[in-house]
């Protein structure tokens, strides 16, 4: 075993030496260089036996499927800039994003595929760092990366690296979460502070030279979802408020359910650091992405169970009720402002652009 490790370390050393530490077009050519990259770096870093077979497909044991169980499938591309930010990086994000897209539907994540598009000239050590982080996130989520693909494009054709992950999950029989189950009187909740990821990435871009410690909330959510599903039978629907943030997600829920939502601004958890960044840049934290939070709807009679369940799980610190579902114009979201006014909340048109003055 240690002999194998030594051999691997030697191959890795040679890979770095031959390519002067950088990804070259040869690494995507399908020839020897590509095989060295995969065998000496990508596969051992991701570290799954199924992946190590290097076959054209991963073969998964479905286990014993109960009658009525279903498979869930999702895919997502990741292009975040900068690729490393406080609290995470593109590797961790790519794993968590797909795991969470499965989880919020109630599906237990079972396996991931990961495809890389690398820019010529990318440092191999950086690639290794991103893959190490992806693996750690996968282990945290209790899932393996079992298939993959690596392409290299000429310098300028992509921004460092792009990552695509595809996930497969298992839906237990009868699991049916979705906006179609939302009823008037239901309550809206979040699992923690909003906007951390969006603010962290914006600060990490460094355009504003803001010195503030905001960490991305990027985390796999399956364990929290399983916990809530087990403890709160009246759970109607879950979403992860990624692009477009909390506000967009609630508008989607309102549209999907054909009901109206009322949000209490005073109840919304937003960290002071995030509020500060938003105040300076003229942005609204409700539209900033989260990568480790749930937005959910629960039947009113299950509110005590929900509150107990949230306070019992470490990933739901700072979470709580933030609004309610009402009869009203379908798709309408109204927010009672902390100041005492009311305003409509809608999806953004285009990106949030900083205001002049």
């Amino acid at each position, binding site marked *: 075993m240690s002999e194998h490790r030594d051999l691997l370390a030697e191959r890795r050393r040679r890979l770095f030496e031959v390519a002067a530490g950088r990804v070259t077009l040869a690494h995507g050519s399908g020839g020897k260089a590509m095989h060295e990259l995969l065998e000496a770096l990508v596969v051992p870093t991701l570290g799954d036996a199924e992946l190590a077979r290097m076959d054209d497909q991963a073969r998964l044991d479905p286990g014993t499927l109960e009658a009525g169980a279903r498979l869930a499938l999702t895919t997502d591309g990741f292009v975040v800039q900068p690729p490393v930010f406080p609290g995470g990086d593109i590797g961790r994000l790519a794993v968590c994003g797909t795991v969470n897209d499965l989880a919020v539907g109630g599906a237990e994540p079972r396996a991931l595929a990961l495809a890389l598009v690398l820019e010529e000239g990318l440092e191999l050590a950086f690639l290794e760092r991103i893959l190490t982080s992806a693996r750690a996130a996968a282990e945290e989520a209790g899932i393996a990366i079992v298939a993959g693909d690596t392409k290299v494009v000429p310098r300028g054709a992509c921004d460092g690296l792009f990552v695509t992950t595809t996930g497969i999950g298992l839906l237990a029989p009868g699991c049916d979460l979705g906006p179609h189950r939302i009823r008037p009187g239901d309550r809206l909740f979040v699992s923690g502070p909003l906007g951390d990821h969006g603010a962290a990435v914006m600060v990490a871009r460094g355009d504003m030279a803001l010195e503030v410690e905001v960490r991305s909330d990027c985390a796999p959510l399956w364990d929290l979802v399983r916990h809530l599903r087990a403890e709160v039978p009246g759970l109607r629907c879950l979403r992860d408020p990624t692009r477009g943030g909390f506000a967009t997600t609630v508008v989607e829920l309102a549209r999907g359910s054909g009901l109206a939502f009322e949000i209490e601004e005073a109840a919304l958890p937003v960290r002071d650091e995030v509020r500060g960044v938003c105040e300076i840049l003229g942005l609204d934290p409700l539209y900033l992405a989260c990568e480790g939070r749930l937005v959910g709807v629960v039947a009113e009679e299950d509110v005590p169970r929900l509150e107990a369940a949230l306070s019992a799980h470490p990933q739901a610190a700072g979470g709580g009720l933030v609004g309610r579902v009402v009869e009203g114009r379908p798709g309408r979201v109204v927010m009672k402002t902390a100041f005492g006014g009311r305003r*409509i909340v809608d999806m953004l048109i285009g990106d949030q652009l900083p205001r002049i003055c």
Partner: protein
Amino acid sequence: MKYVDEFRDPERARRLVAAIEGLVADIPTCRERPLYIMEVCGGHTHAIFKFGIEGMLPEEIELVHGPGCPVCVLPMGRVDDCVALAETPGVIFTTFGDAMRVPGSRKSLLQAKAEGADVRMVYSPLDALAIARRHPDREVVFFGLGFETTMPATALTILQAEREGIRNFSVFCNHITIIPTIKAILDSPDMQLDGFLGPGHVSAVIGTRPYRFIPEVYRRPVVIAGFEPLDILHALWRVLVQIRDGRPFVENQYRRVVREEGNPSALAAIERVFELREFFEWRGLGSIDHSGVRIRDAYARFDAERRFSIPALKIADPRSCQCGEVLKGVLKPWQCKVFGTACTPETPLGALMVSSEGACAAWYQYGDLDRVMEARA
């Protein structure tokens, strides 16, 4: 959060609203028609919508959203000039973010960027100067935009460029001044405003004296206001006190930032670099005398208008567009013929639909749109 929450205290807000309601009962005009109070500045418009202030006020008060959004009042021809500059080979065109989406007659800067022009968003003209330093082989043009709020930063950047001997930096100057514009609104025949919330950041630069003509000549109150929601309620209350007492004057509610004499060093920088243009074209309002500035001859080499050949065509506003009436407070945003139909934030016809500070875009984003559409149908 310190220095923010103090200005957003709902209990104080309730007390101020109660005081405003009390005053309204004492003002006889309110029995016949609403009082029209204009907030001049786009920053106020944004805050009013964001915090839901309009709905907290008694029906007797109608807020009129004024012309103080520099992005909104930019005429189409000027946006075309920006696009032409951005598409000039070798140019890096730098701009504040919210100017990117303003429609020109053919395209916006955002579209020009998508087609390959090198358009970059900056937060300050100094960022643009830094880009010029990094790219000595390229021409870097900064889109100078805004009222007296942003003018000093542009002026100081030009002075800095001169000190450093930077030769590849210039400013496409579209800076405008607020006073002639308020005067133009006061002089328009259909004007029916009862008072003003004066701009906060502009006044931090120019001080409070330039507004004196408003109470002295036009007998209207002006209260210079900060941008937090309590500032706005407080200033509204003070406007009403002046109306009730029949004694209009320039009052400074934003004393933590604004001084009577303004900011002398900022004013000196403006004076050194800029001079008044004879007239400047405003979207929706037409040409207003002495309402814009240009770069003085002494700094001509930093003037993009002299450095490049710019089409400078005058493009008429779309005929269906009623931005002018909305800017003057004659129409509410949703009373415009094309609001929400031909003119939406996705496809803005008029400038007020473009920036989140524009009255129409703010109304579209935060207002009760469905009810308006239903009422019109």
